């Protein structure tokens, strides 16, 4: 069954720089995805609660504050605690390659730096969601 990919786009932290998040949200929409945009100043708890209620395939975070080594692991842990560990956690911001690798080892998806063409993000999300849906959906039979 083909259904739209659902993505939550959120921006944790206290800075007001949401342009990146908005650009990505629009690009994903234009790629045929249903994007739930919750905007600025989201705590990890708020993000995970929204992801659960919206039954998204993907949680995409924009983090420019330098707090990515705290925020990504925290959101990932909360997702798992809420039984939503199957969701893809991805995102972008100013993040060093070393940090990206460390986070990937913990189970965070690919992260994207400044200047990434949005088509790369779209392709990655499509590929990853296709994989995750096939492994996961047999679990919850009506």
């Amino acid at each position, binding site marked *: *069954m083909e*259904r*739209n990919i659902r993505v939550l786009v959120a921006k944790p932290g206290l800075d007001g720089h949401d342009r990146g998040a908005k650009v990505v*949200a*629009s690009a*994903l*929409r*234009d*790629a*045929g*995805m*249903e*994007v*739930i*945009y*919750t*905007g600025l100043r989201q705590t990890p*708890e*708020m993000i995970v*609660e*929204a992801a*659960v*209620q*919206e*039954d998204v395939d993907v949680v995409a975070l924009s983090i420019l504050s330098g707090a990515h080594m705290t925020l990504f692991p925290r959101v990932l842990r909360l997702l798992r605690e*809420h*039984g*939503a560990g199957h969701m893809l956690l991805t995102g972008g911001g100013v993040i060093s390659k070393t940090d990206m690798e460390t986070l990937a080892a913990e189970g965070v998806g690919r992260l994207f730096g400044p200047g990434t063409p949005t088509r790369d993000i779209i392709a990655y999300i499509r590929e990853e969601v296709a994989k995750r849906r096939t492994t996961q959906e047999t679990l*919850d*039979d*009506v």
Partner: protein
Amino acid sequence: MTLLDRLFNGDRLALARVITWLENDPDRRERLMSVLFSRTGKARRIGVTGPPGAGKSTLIDRLIVRFRLQGFTVGAVAVDPTSPFTGGALLGDRLRMQSLWSDPDVFIRSLADRNHAGGLSPATADVMTALEAAGKQVILVETVGVGQTTLDIADLADTTMVVLTPESGDSVQAMKAGLMEVADILVVNKDDRTGASHFASELRNVLEMRHNESGWRPPVLRASARDDTGIEAVYEQLNTHLAFLSQSDRLYQRRLRQSRAAITRALSEEMRRKVVSHPDYDTLIDGLCVSVARREKTPQDAARTVMARTA
């Protein structure tokens, strides 16, 4: 434990997944609805509609807080438009509904309208059913921002609230807009703006001129959802309208009307599905397109041919 057992036990992830199936998977939907539907029909159903940017989401957020203060559990459905070109959607209502984000007795779901006319997603009624089956006592539904169009919301809600702003147009606009006919309650939001008082009294004048056989004259209220003023009066009017419906058999009559609309929807959906799933459907249509393009057949003739051959 099955998905439905989990839903009845208050598992939010299960409710979320059930909604996904109701929206996307006809087979699962059939099985789910056969269990869920009979368990519902008691919740209060409130529709909120009005032009884009009128403040519907923010007003709903404020009302959720009022309902929670009175001890009601709340579900909300927020519908935003799907792009007819890409099939994608940007669902932004939730952004303004975050006051009680951590309250386990509030559940909010965003839906894309999937290009369905009338300001609602085709799954809206089913999603409302799932929310009620999961224990929500009040269900609020926000339509996409609509103007002069036929409105499905009155077929789903017991009380329909129309949210406007002082800029929403003069009384002539208001008179011809279909929006006015579905309104049980009118809210002039953003009432700190110029012209709010004037617009509200124009609306009242229009409503007074209207022939009204239901016995309910829709009140016009002023509010500012952002500043959280005037919300108490809106909440009171929701209760007054419910009390009005509960007198004699008005609520029952409304439910009969809703049921009729629901059957009609299901009927056209069933008929369409039956036709479209017929193995000869594609070939048949391909051939008929040519005849219609050459003006040898009218589209209506072609449709009748399709129905006859796929019956």
